[in-house]
Structures are given as structure tokens and as C-alpha cells.
């Protein structure tokens, strides 16, 4: 069966129709979990694990706010191995290279995985066809939608929580491994059948919390939930690479020419070096023109904290902190506001934050001539990430811009057809590369406004041809016939299939 983008998807799934198809649907909500249970406190995870009576085939969820510094998932993984539980469905919001799940996959103790982003050894194991069941990849907003609707039913949520009080309330703002906001886990908290907060810091009382004890079944005190220093891994500072800076400058110029930078505007960028350079360039324009934005959102870095401090934005809406400067800001600055993944990007949420974005700057591994974007696999089919908030923000923001070099290690960015569609081209407005800018022909309004500017506007086909002249045309690696997973669009439809690497 093919979806509307011509991608073959598995038989019993709902095919992707369009980015706006969800508007015709009603929000589905399962009841939040009963809240009458008292919170039980444990001194070791193994006892709690036994008391949970975890059985073969259950669904266990985790969040990834400690990113590469997380140790809770690994501790639970050790217990799964020890107690020989089989056929589990694991649903962490992301999977980082440090997460030790490959052996559990190879031993068939984990049968299915649902996540928003993965790379490293687990990604390699799955792309190699070793997962017995299926990999399902959500967007951040889509995961919240799946949980609240019951599409992703969670038996036990193991939630790393940097500080917990004696009532069982939990916060990410305090503790020796404070990681800031806990936005990805709010849906798990409210809808999982059992919720376990795993902490290394128990306090008598918290001045503020994000996890309300009424949803919590167990609190487990462990020596360490990980290393908060690891949350910065995978993110960078402003690039010093001249090409990245050129792309950033051109992006800022494009945004300025389009009249986006004005009082009350809102934006989001990723945490990559070029994205932050775009933020820096836009920040300079804002300072020069004395402009104050309404808010910046997303994963928040220290750079946006600085912009907030300079008064360039009135608020930060933060679903996850990308570094310790953001953690500190979240703890101390009331204008730095935690939001849940649902409030951030769930299409069925009333006014999700992404819908209020004027501008989002995103990356891409591949883009095709229809502007479809792949951030899930590379051109060889290796799983290198996933949507995260990519598809959510691209849809919600009034202007969605992809920034990338025209080639990466001689592999062209622009292809006739991307290997995997993560975000539909209908939601992408512009692609900025070091050699030119392509505007989606659907956005005639943008093209009209850019007439007469000094920006180098090219058709996307011209950009692709230019790269082919510069670096040649690489031979396409054929896809195998074996599906290892599926990319789910934010509305729950299947937008593409992920195939086993050759």
C-alpha cells in the first residue's frame, strides 16, 4: 500500500494523507491514570522492579532529558536482562549511543521499539535487521498524541527525576543531576499505568515541581541517575566553520528580507552550530533595530538564555534543556517556562506552541525536489536520528527554513528522492545552502517578496545540478526489501518505511 507521497507502507497502518489531514479528526483522549494510590518509596531499583511484576510483552517507557548522561534506562535494562523478561516493547522518547539495549534486542528481550530519535549502536542494530518486531518513530508532538490517545499504551514509565520530595512530587530543576525541564515525560506521567520516579536526590519539600505526586506510584532512590554533564553532548556552540557562518548569515538576511524580524516575533532553532549562528545573526539584527521577540522555544541552549537575558525575547518555552546554562536559567528565571511535549507539538493540543512560531530553522540529511526532508536515515540507509520536533515545528511555523551545506562528505544534500521522508515538503518553505537558496514554489508570496534582493535565489533543481557539477553524481545505493521500521507523522499516519541496510 502506498501513501499520498508514493511511499510504500505496511498493510494495516493509516497512510499519510497530508500535513493538514488531522484537522478533520477529533482529539482522542484516554482517561488519565487513577490518582488515589499512595506513593511507595524504595531504596533500591531491583526491589521496586520486582514489585512492579513486569511481565513479558509489557511496554516500558523512559524520557531522555539526561540525554547522553542518563543512567536510569541502563539500570532498568540490566534488570530486564537479569530477570530474563522477553518480548518487551520499549518506548523511550529518544535513544542515545550510551543506552545499552543492543544485547536485549539480539536476545529478543526487546521485541518492539517506539521512539522519536535514535543513533549509535542501537540504531545500527535495528537498521541491520536485528529487531524482531518493529521500530516506530514518532515526532515529539506525535508521541504525546500517541500516549494520550492510547495508541501508545504504557505499562510502566521509569522516569529519571533529579529531585523528588517526601510527597512524591518531582522536579528537574534541583538535585545534583538537575537537567531542567521534563517536558517529554509529562504524557508518560499522566497516562502510564504505573509511574516510577527514579532519583538520586530526595528532599523534604520542593518549591516547584513538574511531576505531581498524584500520578506517581513509586519513588526509587538510587546512588546516581547519571551525569547531568552529559546533557550537553550532541549539541554544540556557534559554529566557527566559515561555510556554516556563511549559511547562517544568508539565512538571517533571508529572514530579514521576508520581514519576519519584528517586535513580537517568535523563533526556534536547533542546537547545532549553524543553527546557533543563525540565532546569533538574527540576534544582532534585533539588537541593531531594537526589536524584542515574544518567545523562543524548543530545546533551549545557553545561547537563547543569553538572548533572554539581553531582553531580545520576553519568554523561553522550554521542552528540554540542551545545556547546563539552560538548566540554571530554568531554575532561576520565571520567564523561562517549562512546557510539555504535548503543549509543544501535539497537533490536537489547543494552540500548541509550534503553531505560534513565526520562524523555525531546521537541519536535513537529505532534501528532495519536492522539498521532502529526511533526518531519519543517511543516504546509505543508516539510522542517524529522527524527527524529534522537526515535523512538528515545520508544520506549525509560518516560515520553516532548512539550513545545510550543499554536500556532506561529497554526498549531495538535494536528491531526486530522499531515502526516507521525515517531514513532508509541503511544510518546508526554504532551503539555504552556501551556494544558493531554494524557495518552495508553493510559496509564491515569498518569491515575490524576494524579487530585487541581493540573495541568490535558485530553483531547487538548479541547486541539485550545481552540486552534481561540483562533486559528481554518486551512485544510488538500492534499498533492500526488508522493512525494519516506520516513520509516523505527527497525526499518527505512516509517512515512510525504514528499510534494513544492505
Amino acid at each position, binding site marked *: 500500500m502506498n501513501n499520498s507521497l508514493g511511499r510504500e507502507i505496511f498493510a494495516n497502518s493509516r497512510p499519510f494523507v497530508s500535513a493538514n489531514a488531522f484537522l478533520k479528526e477529533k482529539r482522542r483522549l484516554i482517561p488519565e491514570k487513577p490518582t488515589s494510590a499512595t506513593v511507595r518509596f524504595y531504596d533500591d531499583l531491583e526491589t521496586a522492579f520486582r514489585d512492579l511484576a513486569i511481565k513479558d510483552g509489557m511496554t516500558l517507557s523512559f524520557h531522555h532529558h539526561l540525554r547522553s548522561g542518563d543512567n536510569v534506562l541502563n539500570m532498568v535494562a540490566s534488570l530486564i536482562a537479569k530477570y530474563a523478561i522477553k518480548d518487551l516493547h520499549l518506548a523511550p522518547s529518544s535513544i542515545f549511543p550510551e543506552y545499552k539495549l543492543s544485547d536485549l534486542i539480539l536476545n529478543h528481550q526487546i521485541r518492539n521499539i517506539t521512539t522519536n530519535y535514535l543513533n549509535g549502536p542501537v540504531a545500527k542494530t535495528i537498521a541491520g535487521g536485528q529487531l524482531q518486531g518493529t521500530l516506530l518513530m514518532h515526532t515529539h508532538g506525535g508521541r504525546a498524541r500517541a500516549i494520550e490517545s492510547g495508541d501508545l499504551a504504557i505499562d510502566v514509565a521509569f522516569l529519571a527525576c533529579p529531585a523528588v520530595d517526601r510527597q512524591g512530587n518531582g522536579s528537574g530543576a534541583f538535585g545534583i543531576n538537575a537537567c531542567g525541564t521534563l517536558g517529554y515525560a509529562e504524557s508518560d506521567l499522566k497516562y502510564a499505568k504505573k509511574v516510577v520516579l527514579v532519583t538520586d536526590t530526595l528532599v523534604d519539600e520542593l518549591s516547584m515541581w513538574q511531576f505531581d505526586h498524584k500520578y506517581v506510584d513509586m519513588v526509587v532512590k538510587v546512588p546516581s541517575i547519571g551525569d547531568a554533564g552529559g546533557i550537553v553532548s550532541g549539541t554544540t556552540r556557534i559554529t566557527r566553520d*566559515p561555510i556554516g*557562518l*556563511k549559511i547562517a548569515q544568508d539565512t538571517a538576511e533571508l529572514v530579514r528580507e521576508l520581514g519576519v524580524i519584528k517586535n513580537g516575533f517568535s523563533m526556534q532553532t536547533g542546537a547545532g552550530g549553524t543553527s546557533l549562528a543563525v540565532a546569533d545573526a538574527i540576534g544582532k539584527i534585533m539588537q541593531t533595530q531594537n526589536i524584542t521577540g515574544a518567545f523562543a522555544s524548543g530545546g533551549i541552549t545557553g545561547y537563547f538564555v543569553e538572548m533572554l537575558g539581553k531582553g531580545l525575547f520576553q519568554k523561553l518555552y522550554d521542552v528540554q534543556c540542551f545545556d547546563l546554562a539552560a538548566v540554571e536559567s530554568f531554575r532561576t528565571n520565571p520567564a523561562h517556562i517549562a512546557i510539555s511535549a504535548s503543549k509543544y507539538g501535539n497537533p490536537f493540543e489547543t494552540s500548541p506552541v509550534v503553531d505560534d512560531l513565526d520562524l523555525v530553522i531546521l537541519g536535513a540529511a537529505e532534501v528532495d525536489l519536492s522539498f521532502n526532508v529526511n533526518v531519519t536515515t543517511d543516504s546509505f540507509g543508516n539510522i542517524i536520528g529522527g524527527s524529534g520536533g522537526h515535523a512538528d515545528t515545520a508544520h506549525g511555523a509560518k516560515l520553516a527554513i532548512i539550513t545545510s551545506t550543499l554536500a556532506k562528505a561529497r554526498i549531495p544534500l538535494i536528491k531526486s528522492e530522499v531515502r526516507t521522508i521525515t517531514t513532508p515538503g509541503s511544510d518546508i518553505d526554504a532551503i539555504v545552502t552556501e551556494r544558493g537558496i531554494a524557495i518552495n514554489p508553493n510559496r509564491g508570496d515569498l518569491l515575490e517578496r524576494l524579487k530585487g534582493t541581493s540573495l541568490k535565489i535558485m530553483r531547487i533543481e538548479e541547486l541539485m545540478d550545481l552540486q552534481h557539477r561540483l562533486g559528481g553524481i554518486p551512485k544510488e545505493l538500492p534499498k533492500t526489501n526488508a522493512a525494519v521500521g516506520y516513520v509516523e507523522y505527527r497525526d499518527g499516519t505512516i509517512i515512510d518505511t525504514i528499510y534494513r541496510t544492505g
Partner: protein
Amino acid sequence: MRSFLFVPGNNPSMVQNADVFPADAVIFDLEDSVHVAEKDNARRLLRDYLTSHPSLPQKVAIRINAMDTPYYKADLEALVADEIDYIVLPKATVTTTQKLGSDLFALEQKRELNKHIDIIPIVELAASLVEVCKIAATSRVVAILFGAEDYCAEMEIKRTLAGEALFFPRSQIAVACRANGIIAIDTPFTDVADDEALLKDCHNGALLGMTAKAAIHPRQVGAINEAYSPAQDQIDWAKKVVKAEKEASSKGLGVFSLDGKMIDKPVIERARKTLAKAKQYNLAGQDDE
């Protein structure tokens, strides 16, 4: 021309992307930024790049090694070709500049090139500064690049942000270039992370009559282009003067008053030059006539 960007000749990723930056010219370097052990590789890389890359910078310059080094001849042999616009000669004197002109002529003839390669001498020795007018007047010389680091080292003086130490050489070079109708390229600013200081340094050079500046990092190019382009208020003023001059001329007036100030021939000439520059850099807008 406003900006001349140095790119190390032995760095493939920088070389292949040299054309994406808004520099008016790129100087591919074979001298200081290329280690002795890398000279051969750099020549080969640049030769291959220049003959095969489908997109070259607007203007291509090569900084060769100085004439008193063992690399000078090999640099010319490897790279003199139709793709080159300028040879940048370090530690230039009148004698070495003239000799380079002869060597270029011989190679152009031998290779039957379709073009005439120009020379940009680097004035970085006290002796060169003394004879800079003669260097500027030498055949093929289209610009002079001031090299402040070597100059300061030889003079045993310290370069400061305020630019006092460079007042004389900048002025001397600027005057020599103006007298010969060629480009005066100011020395690069070496702190690539300090954008504010770069602007100040650009201002220091422009104030004394330098008309362009070398960049040692692509991030400096934008600021240099801006500093050496006419500002919008200057362009507006120039348009106003030229328009008023046309009206005055139709009435037979050589001197006239505009906004309470007397406008005469030198002022009109300055306005015309400003407009010409603005047009050259696409800054004049559509109603510049």
C-alpha cells in the same frame, strides 16, 4: 574592489569553497600559511582546482613565495595560466616587481595565454615603502597590498588598535596608489574573533585613503565590504548632488548651493565617484540616474 580574501593553498575544503564568499577577489596562498613540506602539494591542489572546478571566485590571485626563496620559480611554473588574474608578490621592491613582470611575460608567451596577468606587490619592508611610488608605477601593478606585520617587525614597533604605528605607511601607500590610479589594499586584521575591532581597523585604513582590505578569514569579508562601500547616507547625498548639478548646469551655473552648502567641482566629482562605486557594488538602487 574592496575585499581580498586569503585562502591557504593547501586546504582542500577551503579551496573548493573559496567562491562562495562575497570577497571581490580570493588570494590563494602558497607562502606563509603553507608549510615548507606542503609547498608541492599546495601547488598541485591549486592547479587541479583552477583547471577543473566549475565555479571559481570572481577574481583569482596567487600569493607566491618571495623571489629570494627556492619556491618562487616553481610557484610560477605551476600556476601561471588563464585562470589567474593576479600574482601577489611578497617583500616586493621595484627590482623584484619588474623581474616578476618579465617572468610573467615570458611564461605568458610560452604558454600562449589569452590574458595578461597583473601584479599585486606586498609592501612590507621599510625599503619598499621608500620606493612605493615607483612600485606603484611599475607595469602590470594594479594594486599594492600593505603588509603591516613584517613592517612592524622590521621597524621594531608595535601595532595597536588605534593604528598610530601604521599612520605613515598607510598614508604613503594610499597616496602612491591614488597617484597611479591603482587599488590600495590595507593590511589584514589578525584577530578574527573581534568584529568590532575589525571595523575600527577598517575605518583607520579608509580614513587615510586605503580603498580595500585583505581578509584572513571569510567572516571578515562582510565587514570589509561594508566598510569600503559607500554608506546609504553618502549614496543619497551623492544622488542629490548629481541631480542638483544637472539642474544647475542647464541654467549655466558651475557652482551652486545645496542645503545651504556650496557645491563646486571637487564636491561634484566626489559625488560622482561615490555613485560609481555604489553602482559597482549594486548599492545604488533603481533611481540612481
